């Protein structure tokens, strides 16, 4: 895990550099669209206390100065399938965002939605010789976590200490200077497919950008769509994307679980296209304009022109009722939600104190989805729109942008990760000067 530590640390330094420069881009590479926000960090003190704007968890110190989104290319299931195509799409979106911001951007933080995420809960425990939790004990206990075999080619995307416990006292977010004999930690580790992550890094490098961080899209959309209380009390965020449906579970403002289903709105469109024998673009149009999941009696009478550009008059003049369209969409949406329910069950969501489910992502805009989801996932379901951030244009406030916005929030207010703590002295090579330095620092 040490090379990962170095790599993530390098990215963290890059992020710090970008913050110093004041301009950073966040890039949400989805299956159907790529969104890029250019953030300007003005630093704190932009608002005074008298303006009625509190610190807002670091959201008030940046604003969006450029936004662009474009159709994604070469992506499938949230992973990069054709590198050159995706690179072109990234170039397009970055160039137009730069044009909108009128600023050159060199650092980018990206999120990855697919790549088969896997969540692990790790636990570690150490004895405290000093009877008190010292600074280096935190890193020691993080290093003491038992790391399971993640499997071949897996990379750790997030490794966040979720909970500290000193002796019997659990639920500590900062255990430093607590007295006790034992320090325990619960850590949430999210791993993804290494090759998919490598492909993403390669694509961004090809665009002359420095990668300043990678985050999971499910996590980011959870940050944007869940309000603070939901994050604190426990909630699941379901990001209905086009290629993947991300699920992330939050409690005590920490992500404790994340996963993704390899189904999404794309599949619904494909079903429509196959079922009605129309082109993919037309199917997408039908889905967004007339789609739904709850059929009523009136829908039988509402006839929809299929349209088309085939050149055949008969084919282009076909009509279907809205009930037909709903009949195609609903099984697929149900299938997706079933899978989500399975994931939530596997995550032990039923045992959470508050079982709030928040639907976000482009797919959450299907009319009637909330009632369907409430029936399938539990009663506390709402459609979540992303948090509003400063300078965001109106057309980017749709639920489909929640992972991009969440990524911006994460950039402004990063979560402590395992690699943000100092490496314990034991992890250095035996004869390293830094090890000696660290030993001196800890003992005097």
């Amino acid at each position: 895990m040490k090379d990962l530590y170095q790599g993530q640390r390098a990215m963290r330094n890059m992020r710090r550099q970008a913050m110093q420069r004041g301009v950073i881009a966040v890039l949400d590479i989805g299956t159907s669209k790529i969104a890029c926000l250019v953030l300007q960090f003005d630093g704190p003190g932009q608002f005074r206390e008298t303006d009625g704007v509190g610190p807002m968890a670091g959201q008030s110190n940046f604003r969006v100065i450029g936004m662009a989104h474009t159709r994604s290319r070469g992506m499938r299931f949230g992973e990069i399938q054709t590198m050159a195509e995706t690179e072109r799409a990234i170039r397009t979106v970055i160039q137009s965002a730069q044009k909108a911001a009128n600023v050159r951007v060199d650092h980018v933080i990206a999120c990855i939605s697919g790549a088969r995420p896997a969540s692990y809960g790790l636990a570690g425990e150490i004895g405290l010789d000093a009877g008190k939790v010292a600074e280096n004990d935190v890193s020691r206990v993080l290093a003491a976590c038992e790391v399971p075999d993640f499997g071949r080619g897996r990379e750790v995307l997030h490794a966040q200490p979720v909970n500290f416990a000193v002796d019997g006292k659990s639920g500590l977010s900062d255990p430093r200077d607590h007295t006790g004999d034992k320090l325990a930690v619960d850590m949430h580790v999210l791993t993804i497919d290494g090759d998919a992550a490598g492909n993403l890094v390669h694509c961004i490098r090809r665009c002359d950008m420095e990668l300043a961080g990678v985050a999971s899209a499910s996590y980011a959309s959870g940050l944007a769509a869940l309000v603070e209380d939901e994050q604190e009390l426990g909630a699941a965020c379901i990001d209905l994307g086009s290629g993947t449906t991300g699920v992330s579970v939050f409690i005590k403002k920490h992500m404790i679980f994340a996963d993704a289903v390899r189904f999404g709105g794309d599949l619904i469109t494909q079903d429509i296209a196959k079922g009605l024998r129309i082109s993919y673009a037309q199917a997408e149009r039908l889905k967004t304009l007339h789609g739904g999941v709850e059929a009523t009696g009136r829908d039988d009478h509402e006839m929809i022109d299929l349209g088309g550009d085939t050149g055949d008059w008969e084919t282009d003049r076909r009509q279907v009722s809205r009930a037909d369209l709903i009949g195609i969409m609903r099984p697929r949406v149900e299938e997706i939600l079933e899978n989500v329910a399975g994931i939530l069950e596997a995550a032990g969501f039923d045992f959470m104190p508050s079982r709030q489910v928040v639907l976000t992502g482009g797919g959450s805009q299907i009319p009637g989805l909330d009632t369907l989801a409430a029936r399938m996932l539990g009663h506390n379901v709402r459609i979540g729109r992303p948090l509003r951030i400063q300078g965001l244009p109106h057309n980017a406030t749709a639920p489909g942008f929640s992972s991009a916005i969440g990524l911006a929030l994460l950039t402004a207010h990063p979560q402590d990760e395992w690699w943000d703590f100092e490496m314990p002295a034991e992890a250095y090579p035996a004869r390293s000067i830094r090890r000696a330095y660290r030993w001196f620092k800890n003992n005097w």
Partner: protein
Amino acid sequence: MQGLNPFGHRDADQGRPAPVRHVPSRPAPQVGAAKATPRRDPAPSRLAYRLNRMMLRPLMRRLIRVGLPAFLIAMVGGIWLSDETRRANLYSGVDGVVDKVQHRDAFMVQSMRIEGASEVVDKALRAMLPVELPASSFDIDLAKLREKVRMLDAVEAVDLRITPGGVLTAVVTERVPAVLWRHARGLELLDKTGHRVASVTARDVRKDLPIIAGEGADRAAPEAMALIEAAGPILPRLRGLERVGERRWDLVLDNGQRVKLPEDGALRALERVIALNKAQDLLSRDVAEIDLRNEFRPVLQIGNEAQNAIRRARGQAEIGPDGKPLETNPSVAAGQKNSTKTGTNPKKT
């Protein structure tokens, strides 16, 4: 799915064939039009992307916005001017315009009028004008000309101006000769401040003016003027003032009498001499020299005549003007001095 298909009247096991085209019913789609506009890739090429990013650099943008236009202007101008003929044309054109403006009637100076100048100065002034009249007023540098005119010794001040009628007016204030100065190189007229006015060839040119002499007399001319002013009663007998050692004045009277005045307070000493003269008629007696250099010890040197009178009264041999005893009694006059200190004499007054 079957129920959804409104056109599903064909055999189910066959699968759905492609829709039948009714060929003659409508014109074929225009192939050429579709081909003419193939969908352009919206993505920028790698090169375009890099160029775009390069252009967004602040330095680059400043270079493009300021540097490039400046360079282009400089280059075009340089190339255009590099040709000798064009440059000459440009210069002559500019010169022509300047000339045209400067030689408008409004700027022309037609004549010159000089006021308050003697004939000599008038001639000199006219000669000093750098251009032939009529000329443009731009060609006449009044400040320079004024300086030049003021270099003339005879001119004290000059007021040069170009009046609206195109007349160059010079109002000259000439220096008034107040005193003649005789020195080793000749004879000069000085004004009352001691500034040279002109040279003269002989004393007779200005008989009315007093004369001063000696090196450095011109610098002390104001003092000399004051002395001459004060000499009122003895003025008819005054031959002139002589500057001694560039330090003090000697008053020289017509019969060779000399009043040596001190360096400081010469005026007071002169007044004292005049008072003495009034009281005792001192200067009409046989006194060769009155030495007032030391205020507390005035010295009189009596003339040869008076000396001999004294000697005769004492029964001593008479002496000649050279101080030697006359041949009649050389042995007596051998050790005699020709001056006698009579320090108590002036104090009686």
